[in-house]
């Protein structure tokens, strides 16, 4: 019985070990080594990469990553909640609207991000249109700033908030909404006192699904932020390419991962308290 169990679990263990634990061990090892002259790593062992992280330059990048990811998450929730609520009450058209939410996944994220560049740049569609209409005389700085990065992230990750929110709202017991109205609560009061508190699991799931990839985002800040809005993802990518500092890149990756794990742990504990 136990042998059979072990055989069935073997593919899982092989996957976890080769694709997750082994690479993690390699990164951990790299982070404590010295950089090679042409990239790569070399002896001796040192914790210098971690000490360098305290440099204000990197703390600024870390801070910007947090606030860009946080702002994107809040905006995704603010836009996603009404959308999910609408879809959950759309009756027989639900699947059609869900299909629309998923539709962008049919195209590459890279291509869609480039499309935003064409829309937002100085000679882009938006600026050209506003100039032709005589509303502005010089192009608005729409691209290469934090705002553009947040826009791109919200655009890219909105479906990841809509889907878990939809799943929660869909399961919400309708008689609770009737009970709320029956007890004198107007629609807005029912929303804030019943619907939103009861969709907390979906809000939490949506927030996690957006915040974590946004925190480590690399493509969007690279294309829409230019060199001006660097996030941790760009910093890591830079260490493995132009900067040729693999140990430092590994150290930053591990610190990012540690921060995310602490956050998840805190959120999971909050969830546990809710159940009591």
């Amino acid at each position, binding site marked *: 019985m136990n042998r059979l169990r072990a055989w069935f679990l073997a593919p899982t263990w092989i996957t976890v070990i080769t694709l997750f634990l082994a690479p993690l061990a390699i990164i951990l090892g790299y982070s404590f080594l010295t950089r090679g002259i042409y990239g790569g790593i070399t002896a001796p062992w040192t914790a210098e990469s971690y000490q360098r992280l305290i440099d204000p330059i990197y703390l600024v990048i870390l801070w910007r990553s947090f606030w860009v990811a946080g702002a994107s998450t809040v905006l995704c929730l603010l836009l996603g909640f009404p959308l999910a609520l609408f879809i959950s009450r759309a009756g027989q058209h639900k699947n059609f609207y869900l299909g629309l939410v998923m539709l962008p996944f049919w195209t590459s994220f890279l291509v869609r991000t480039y499309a935003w560049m064409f829309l937002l740049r100085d000679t882009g569609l938006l600026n050209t249109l506003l100039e032709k209409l005589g509303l502005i005389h010089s192009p608005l700085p729409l691209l290469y700033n934090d705002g553009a990065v947040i826009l791109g992230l919200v655009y890219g990750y909105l479906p990841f908030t809509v889907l878990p929110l939809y799943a929660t709202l869909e399961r919400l017991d309708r008689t609770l909404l*009737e*009970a*709320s*109205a*029956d*007890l*004198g609560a107007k629609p807005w009061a029912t929303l804030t*006192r019943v619907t939103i*508190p*009861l969709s907390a699991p979906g809000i939490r799931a949506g927030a996690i699904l957006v915040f974590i990839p946004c925190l480590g985002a690399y493509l969007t800040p690279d294309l829409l932020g230019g060199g001006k809005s660097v996030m941790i993802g760009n910093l890591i990518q830079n260490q493995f390419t132009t900067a040729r500092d693999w140990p430092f890149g590994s150290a930053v990756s591990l610190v990012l991962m540690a921060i995310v794990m602490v956050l998840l742990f805190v959120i999971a504990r909050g969830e546990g308290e809710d159940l009591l």
Partner: protein
Amino acid sequence: MECVLELRAVSKHYASHHAVNGVSLNLARGEFFSLLGPSGCGKTTTLRMVAGFEEPTEGEIRLNGASIQHLKPYQRNVSTVFQNYALFPHLTVRDNVEFGLRRRAGNHIGDRVRDVLDLVQLAGKESRRPSQLSGGERQRVALARSLVLEPEVLLLDEPLSALDPNLRKQVRAELKAIQRRVGITFLFVTHDQEEALSLSDRLGVMNKGRLEQVGTPEEIYLHPSTRFVASFLGAVNWIGDVGVRPEAMRIAREPSRNGHRSRPATIVHSTFLGNCVHVDTRLSDGEPAVVEVSRLGETFAPGQAVHLWWEPADELRFDELHHE
């Protein structure tokens, strides 16, 4: 008799069927009124129209003389105890009970919540969540949450059906006692005839969207106006055109004495039920008839030929010209 709730020819039509058809009803202030009927008879739809969750297709609903059928649920001073109680799972017992009080005047909220929790015997359980309560306790929270608002009419949608049978009788007695104490008008929907008979001051029997009869439990049981009402409330033996309740029948070896009606029958089976004996018989025309007697004076064997007799006064007669 002061009328608090009035339904005037209220109908609810859906695309596929007529759920409620021309129901007219008056509820006196402080009375316990039950709507009784089989599932799908329109009783719950009627209740939901009074609560405001459904809008009548035709007719008028008046609360204290004012039309309310176009008002939203939160604009009506009626309150509902739902079949599944619909307690807010994220709120404590106290917060559930205070839910509807929030927008009302401040200082006395604490007192009112305490009073109503005492009334339903939930004092000491204020900080529990609904998931930590038993079925009976949840039912009492739902009741308290509505009662604390002092509604003109309390609407109860089969509130006892989710409880286990042992608890149901006890909760039934408590419910009646609470209604007497608070004096609030109860409109109680049920498919359980025993519940309706034991709780109600008056009751209405519904069938296929229509209200067939309204009256006190005694009136309806003793003088049902239609065959449906007669057979839905209690058992009836149909002998030709007349109905006779099993407990109004007697069994004897010989035909009736003067003034009694009688029919020859054959014993099929008898069942001892403790407080009474059920005797299944078959009339000479092949129809089954059940007799319920407190105790059998003599023993009857299956297959034995007997006579069933009853008093003419106990016959239920119907002249249903409009029978569908």
